């Protein structure tokens, strides 16, 4: 009997015990009707070949292990970045259970959102009644300052019109007439979560800005961070930098407090976020900066329409990306970049110089959201690494072109390949046929790490199987320092593991590296 009260074994050790191993072996043999071992190992070997890769990359219809989610997830994340705002997703209710779970599993935090719970009858007659009743219930139960409405694909397929539905609900007194109910159509069959983010933020800005007169405040800057699983660490770090510079800025969408509430006995359904008044005033800003270009195209377009100057970045991570961001902020705000920040920069460069011998020539595969991949590729090249495979399942041809331009600008990017629209099963083939030293991505990459032996570094949403990484910044010089350390730890841990066999590799297991 493997179990005992003294030393309780859970699943990880328990099923390695001989009783269970024997039981599982017999189950397989007698009841599973498996393919013969040889056929399985032949097929496994075949999946690692160039021939399999070609078939794999030739796929036209099937998607396996994509690195993207659907629009409404982005909309729910976006809404969480505004003061006391409840997400109301119009359509089937199961979707909302999924978004909430997904966000909670990453942030290890509550994630509130409601559904209009449409069922078969609503599919036939439309979901107006669900909107009317739903808004009334949400308003009364959850005491929001704003309800941000988005849609699941069900509501989109049947063609429910949010604008008129919300109007109808107001006519029926579901919420007061002047209560803010911005909305965005977020069809799951178009784009990905980053587009849902874009649509929701744009919907909120339109709601508050449309028809309002704009009086420009010189030097005032709006910042749109984009969908970011590291918003908790990143937004706070960015605000610190901007405060050090003395810039007048407004974050449009900031979920850093919402997804990092304290444990002190009180459950805060809402915390932090951009104040409604600030959103209104943000119309007057001189410029709006997007931290993630490919994540905010529509929103930025709208900002230009209302007369603001705009600029966009690809996730300001690393030395030059941070330089560019700060210089742009300095140019618009008229504030100088203070010496303290220059010293921070110098300390990052110092750290990179200290470690350069361990990083030069290392090959990477990087996947994730478009701007993140762009940023990581750039930083990797700054360290002398080579971003061999750059993949974004939700990357567009514009992203591909931008990234190729970046890669062409550095000798370290010459051999890099860009994979727009490909999934992680395609990446598996790429890693087998053109291996790399390190894989940068999210938790889903752990299956690639297991299959191909490429060490995984988790720096991208979602991270389910490691805790608290998102609480630390990746942005700015400080963030880059953390990314640098994370990469180095992975390299050193691997080297130690590979040289730790007593009597075999007593050499190379160095105390100082």
């Amino acid at each position, binding site marked *: 009997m493997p*179990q005992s*009260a003294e030393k*309780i074994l859970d*699943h990880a050790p*328990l099923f390695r015990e001989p009783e269970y191993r024997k*039981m*599982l072996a017999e189950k397989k043999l007698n*009841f599973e*009707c*498996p*393919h013969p071992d040889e056929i*399985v190992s032949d*097929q*496994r070997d075949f*999946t690692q070949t160039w021939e399999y890769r070609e*078939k794999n990359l030739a*796929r*036209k219809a*099937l*998607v*396996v292990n*994509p690195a993207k989610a659907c629009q409404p*997830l982005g909309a729910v994340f976006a809404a969480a970045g505004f003061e006391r705002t409840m997400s*109301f997703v119009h*359509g089937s*209710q*199961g*979707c909302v*259970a*999924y978004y909430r*779970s*997904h966000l909670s599993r990453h942030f*290890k935090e*509550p994630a*509130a959102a*409601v*559904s209009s719970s449409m*069922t*078969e009858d*609503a599919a036939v007659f439309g979901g107006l009644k669900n909107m009317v*009743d*739903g*808004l*009334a*219930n949400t308003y009364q*139960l959850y005491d929001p300052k704003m309800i941000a409405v988005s849609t699941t*694909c*069900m509501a989109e*397929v*049947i063609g429910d019109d949010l604008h008129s539905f919300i109007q109808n609900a107001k006519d029926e007194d579901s919420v007061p007439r002047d209560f803010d109910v911005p909305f965005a159509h977020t069809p*799951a*069959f*178009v784009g*990905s979560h980053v587009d849902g983010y874009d649509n929701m933020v744009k919907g909120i800005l339109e709601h508050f800005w449309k028809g309002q007169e704009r009086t420009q405040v010189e030097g005032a800057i709006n910042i749109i961070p984009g969908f970011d699983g590291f918003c908790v660490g990143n937004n706070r770090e960015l605000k610190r930098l901007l405060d050090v510079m003395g810039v007048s800025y407004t974050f449009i969408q900031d979920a850093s407090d919402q997804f990092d*509430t304290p*444990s*002190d*006995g009180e*459950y805060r359904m809402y915390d932090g976020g951009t104040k409604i008044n600030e959103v209104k005033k943000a119309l007057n800003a001189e410029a709006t900066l997007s931290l993630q270009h490919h994540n905010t195209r529509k929103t930025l377009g709208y900002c230009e329409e209302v007369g603001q100057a705009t600029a966009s970045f690809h996730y300001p991570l690393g030395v030059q990306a941070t330089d560019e961001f700060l210089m742009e902020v300095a140019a618009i705000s008229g504030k100088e970049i203070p010496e303290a920040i220059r010293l921070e920069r110098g300390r990052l460069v110092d750290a990179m110089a200290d470690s350069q011998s361990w990083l030069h020539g290392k090959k990477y595969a990087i996947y994730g959201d478009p701007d993140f991949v762009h940023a990581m590729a750039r930083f990797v090249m700054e360290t002398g690494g080579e971003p061999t495979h750059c993949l974004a399942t939700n990357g567009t041809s514009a992203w591909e072109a931008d990234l190729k331009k970046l890669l062409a600008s550095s000798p370290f990017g010459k051999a890099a390949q860009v994979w727009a629209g490909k999934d992680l*099963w395609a990446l598996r083939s790429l890693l087998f046929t053109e291996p790399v030293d390190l894989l940068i991505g999210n938790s889903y990459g752990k299956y690639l790490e297991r299959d191909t032996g490429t060490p995984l570094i988790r720096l991208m949403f979602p991270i389910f199987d490691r805790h608290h990484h998102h609480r630390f910044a990746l942005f700015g010089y400080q963030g880059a320092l953390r990314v640098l350390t994370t990469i180095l730890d992975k390299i050193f841990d691997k080297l130690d593991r590979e040289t730790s066999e007593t009597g075999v590799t007593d050499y190379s297991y160095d105390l100082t590296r």
Partner: protein
Amino acid sequence: MSREYENDGALHAKLIEEVLSHYPDKAAKRRKKHLNVAKSGNEAGGESEVLSECDVKSNIKSIPGVMTIRGCAYAGSKGVVWGPVKDMVHISHGPVGCGQYSWSQRRNYYVGTTGVDTFGTMQFTSDFQEKDIVFGGDKKLEQIIDEIEVLFPLNNGITVQSECPIGLIGDDTEAVSRKKTKEYDKTIVPVRCEGFRGVSQSLGHHIANDAIRDWVFDKKDVKFEAGPYDVNVIGDYNIGGDAWASRILLEEIGLRVVGNWSGDATLAEIERAPKAKLNLIHCYRSMNYICRHMEEKYGVAWMEYNFFGPSQIEASLRNIAKHFGPEIEEKTEKVIAKYRPLVDTVIAKYLSRLEGNTVMLYVGGLRPRHVVTAYEDLGMVIVGTGYEFAHSDDYQRTGHYVKNGTLIYDDVTGYELEKFIEGIRPNLVGSGIKEKYPVQKMGIPFRQMHSWDYSGPYHGYDGFAIFARDVDLAINNPVWDLFHAPWKRSRGDERAMAAE
């Protein structure tokens, strides 16, 4: 070891009244029917089994905008019933999200070479685009099946798990499945589990069960030599290895588990099920349909059992053994005796650390009743329980488990659950990921009772030891004493106990 206690029914009735007063009238009227306090039934005392009556409305539509915790039919089919069948490829047919959010989240353990002969922790999606909505996705589905056959030729079958748009745009996944079944001589199962069907995961279970009946049974000549002690384990999804910790006991008492539905299952185990002598059903809610069908059509008897906690395990083992006669009964007594010292030492270790602690549960369709006795075995008290997607027969069965005065909540809303927990301040809440962090912020220990909070197994004797350890570490962790800054408030009684 069923404990004698009664809950504070008056407090619970007051809490119900309070939460209802916050709803708009129309919603309050509807929600009222889902909330109740368990009352002593007429039979209580006489018929020793029935402890209370838990009479609430269930399995009806959720109210819009209230933050129901429920999922959808797709979650019930792909996520629960079909997803764990490991040697089949399950296509999430429609847009990318559903498959993405449910990817690898239920912890249905299995052994196999993933991506080669097993596919459990992979996400196959048709990733619908606008053009698929406009022109239909049947052609794409055909192409997807072709591509699966090229890249994953060792799959033993395919299921097509329909997402919302499929039923709305009028695709004919059945026709595609029939055509491709013929072409590849392989089992291909269309499952009409669009998320808007029904009111919760529950209809998805039913539809998935029906798909087994219609698209798997009697389709192949199953070569299998049946034995006298053959059983199927039905409705054990092997979460954290539950089905393995159960199988080991069933084998020890002399039974042969010829099929496990559907944790760690292969298609072969599903196909041969009608040849077994007895269906043992753990999750009644999600798989009773197919058991009834197998009884009617193939004459396979079925029996509910409960492998949570020693009291229920012993009772269930004896019940199962009775079905097979003295030889198995004798072995069963030996098995019970063999594990008794483990049970005694586990209880001896944890009882004093947990005794009298109160628990509130809110889970899916089975566990809100099934785990009750396991807590009581550890000296704990269940003060409230409720289901996401139970039917009235589940609430009837709940009366066999919960005591007079227990707070009962069906399809609870986020608001209600928060207020109930605030009002009762239990020592532990057992529910899901969406509930975990709000509850913990309130300073109340929590365990996820869907995923076992990344632990498990919880079934069987091996599982009970883990369950006891996990409940103890949740309740007696020192972090709960650190919530209040000392300069703000004097520290209360510290309750943490170091692990032993």
